[in-house]
């Protein structure tokens, strides 16, 4: 009999699931640490990819990249399975649960019955954990919720086999092996350097600080859009990508600040504490930016120059953090 599973509340689904899987598997690790060493942090503004008519704006790396990066950095063995039909996916899941395994699932948000109706949108890369079953259905630990829930069999099938972009195709994953010795310090150093380089030097106008500059230009052009509602929907879309989807506030910047303060302890480098509070201030700046965007959604008077100015401040402060981290020569 394996030890009982303890649900823990996290800000973001993927890092929360990986943190729970590892902790349950005998390697206690926080969500923020998973997010940091999984190189979760980014900024991407991709106007050529549209979500409901809006450009793709992301404050974190694409789905599954955290799991993959953590697998590589810590030397784990992760088994990912996909299925061609709901029936075999369900049978296999029942089998794994009976074996006492803790299983991560990729699902759609829209078809999960326990999500509040206002928050159901077609996002297919949500992650949750299955830790057991009873006569009604599977016992689910969704890290972004306070408490575990029970999801009825067919409802979970529907969520696992939603169609469209990032279609989960029943994807499920388990951690098969955690190495005896893990060099966390080395993983941290690599991850921080990689994130800094991506944010500062990606030679594309859509990624990192350059991506923020491109978004700023787009915001300044909003008043020229032929549809009057567009500007306000666009700014609302930014807020949702930054604050609504589980980011822990300030588009993951506050979670990254938590990561940096943990790193200071692991590596014994107090400069990382300074970096953590700098990143915390960046997160606050992003929240001020969201606040200025929200005026437009309420139909109040707003100025795009002011909003763009707020974004400029985020960009400048964030650049300082990455330069500071690079200067530490970790």
């Amino acid at each position, binding site marked *: 009999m394996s030890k009982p599973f303890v649900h823990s*509340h996290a800000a973001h689904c993927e890092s929360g699931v990986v943190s729970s899987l590892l902790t349950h598997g005998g390697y206690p690790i926080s969500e923020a640490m998973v997010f940091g060493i999984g190189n979760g942090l980014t900024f991407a503004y991709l106007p050529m990819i549209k979500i409901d008519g809006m450009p793709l704006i992301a404050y974190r790396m694409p789905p599954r990249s955290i799991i993959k990066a953590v697998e590589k950095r810590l030397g784990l063995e992760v088994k990912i399975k996909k299925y061609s039909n709901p029936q075999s996916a369900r049978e296999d899941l029942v089998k794994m649960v009976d074996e006492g395994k803790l299983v991560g699932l990729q699902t759609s948000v829209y078809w999960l019955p326990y999500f509040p109706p206002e928050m159901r949108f077609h996002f297919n890369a949500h992650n949750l954990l299955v830790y057991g079953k009873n006569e009604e259905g599977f016992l689910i630990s969704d890290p972004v919720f306070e408490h575990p829930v029970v999801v009825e069999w067919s409802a979970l099938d529907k969520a696992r086999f939603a169609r469209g972009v990032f279609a989960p195709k029943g994807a499920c994953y388990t951690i098969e092996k955690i190495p005896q010795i893990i060099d966390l310090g080395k993983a941290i150093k690599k991850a921080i350097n990689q994130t800094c380089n991506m944010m500062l030097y990606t030679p594309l106008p859509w990624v990192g600080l350059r991506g923020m500059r491109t978004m700023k230009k787009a915001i300044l052009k909003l008043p020229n859009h032929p549809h009057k509602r567009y500007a306000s929907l666009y700014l609302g879309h930014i807020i949702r990508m930054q604050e609504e989807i589980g980011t822990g506030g300030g588009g993951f910047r*506050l979670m990254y600040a938590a990561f940096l303060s943990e790193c200071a302890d692991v590596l014994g480098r107090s400069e990382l504490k300074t970096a953590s509070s700098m990143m915390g201030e960046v997160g606050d700046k992003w929240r001020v930016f969201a606040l200025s965007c929200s005026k437009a959604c309420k139909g109040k008077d707003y100025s795009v120059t002011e909003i763009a100015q707020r974004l400029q401040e985020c960009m400048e402060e964030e650049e300082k953090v990455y330069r500071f981290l690079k200067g530490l020569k970790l």
Partner: protein
Amino acid sequence: MKKEEAPQDNISMYKGEKKALYASGDEGRFEITQSSGWSVEEIATLQAVEEFERLEAAAYREFKEGNASPLGVWMYRRRMSLATLSQCTGFWEWSVKRHCKLDTFKGLSSQKIALYCDVFDITSEELYNPKEPK
């Protein structure tokens, strides 16, 4: 953000639940703290929901007046755009657009109707007769 500054606006869609946010506590360490929601988030979420409701109501009017098929009503009711529905069904966007027209919709094969029903999770009876939006 300090822990005591974490917004506690009791926003409607959380239904009394709390969300995890990161904020600084003792000695400036950032940790998880519980938030009952931020009004800024609420505004943005409700705006997105209301936009779908507005589109659904317009599609329903068109359907009732006999100018459009019920497909548009279900598309917006399920919070989908033309692009999302096209990705979920595998039909081109222009095909979905045509299926929203009454004449083309009437001529759809039963397989195509079944696919739409599956994507919307409804019966064909429901597909043909959408209830009035709330």
